[in-house]
């Protein structure tokens, strides 16, 4: 069975050669903080965040001018039982800002898309609600449109931003 990140990636469509989309890959299996052994921390935190950093470095060395990181919203909201995965998600969202600040002078723009946690198989009934209000929209959401736009020339002056795609939960 493909990972949630693979599935999300397959739904984003082709991007121009000078663009790179990095989909953060996290486990959907909850683990309480008290149960996080060293092996678990390595698996749930260290490996996924190092992968993001490596992919960012690779995008830079490959000459990409538009980089988009798709990350789960739980980094911003926190999630019970998913502290390690939330750490990855938020670290990925913020390293985007560092990259944007550092590489902006070279004409490289870097942005983040925070995707609703359900796309990553994370259940709000376990992790806790993202917002005090119900989701504004009822339809399924897709990050394809915003990712395609961020990879295009039209978004060339936008960098270091986070675009939330969750049907209007987190506002």
């Amino acid at each position, binding site marked *: 069975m493909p990972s949630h990140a693979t599935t999300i990636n397959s739904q984003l469509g082709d991007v121009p050669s000078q663009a790179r989309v990095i989909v953060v890959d996290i486990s959907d299996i909850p683990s309480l903080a*008290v149960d996080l052994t060293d092996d678990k921390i390595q698996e749930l*935190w260290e490996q996924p965040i190092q992968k993001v950093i490596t992919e960012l470095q690779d995008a830079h060395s490959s000459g990409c001018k538009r980089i988009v990181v798709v990350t789960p919203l*739980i980094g911003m*909201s926190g*999630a*019970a039982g998913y502290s390690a995965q939330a750490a990855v998600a938020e670290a990925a969202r913020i390293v985007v800002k560092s*990259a944007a600040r550092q*590489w902006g002078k070279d004409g490289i723009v870097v942005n983040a898309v925070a995707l609703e946690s359900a796309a990553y198989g994370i259940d709000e009934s376990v992790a806790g609600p993202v917002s005090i209000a119900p989701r504004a929209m009822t339809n399924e959401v897709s990050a394809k449109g915003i990712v395609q736009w961020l990879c295009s020339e039209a978004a060339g002056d936008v960098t270091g931003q986070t675009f939330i795609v969750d049907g209007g939960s987190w506002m």
Partner: protein
Amino acid sequence: MDVTTHTGTRLQDRVAIVTGAGQGVGEGIARRLGEEGATVILAARRAETGEPVAETIRAAGGIAECIVTDVAKGDSVQQCVDETVRRHGRLDIMVHNAFSGAVPHLLHEATMEKNWKLMSKTGVWACFFCARAAYPHLQESSRRGTGLGGGRLILITSPSGVEGSANIALYSPAKAAERAIAKSLAREWGPEGITVNCIAPVAGSPALAIAFERNPALKDAIEARTPLGRVGDITKDIGSVALFLASDDSSYVTGQTIVCDGGSFLGL
């Protein structure tokens, strides 16, 4: 009221561990908690830095001890917590402040890998080590609380963990991770009355003093961009925020980050 000379009882009978308490922000927090009656364990990597701070707290009438601790090692953090509880019978407040490896680097240079490992270990892994070692004792603290009191986990992050940094690019995600951990644990532990919060300080740490020495214009630049016009004091400014989060006054506050930087960063 001048809080630097105030001594009180807001944390009387509570036991606190502060990591990285041998200098800088950790030292300021340890001093302030000690001033309010907490028994303070200074978890420092070197006794040469931790013990003198403990001595100054004791000299002022407080209760403080240094336990040499390497926060990058889970066993070491566990031993610190176990020894604290063995000596004092409880642990109510865990403050994780220690951090190493934040030196200027480019995100795309290979040599930053070693720095990342240090930042990840002392920042993020250590949050998990502190959380899992302290948890049963914070639970117990909440059980014996009077309704307002309870276990407290306080993580020291940074404004850079919110806004990113061109200069120390990977410092920011490490500090951002700490904020996400705080929010997650606030949800996870909230039903048990344990609060988890972050402080994002800008204060006169030894690291900042070195940076000012290397670049004298930096101090003027920071003061100029800060509405309150100065760099924070580790005890009076930052320690007092930690005191609030450690005390009963903050019993309904959890999952939050208090940016304590004189108003320099207003993006939350």
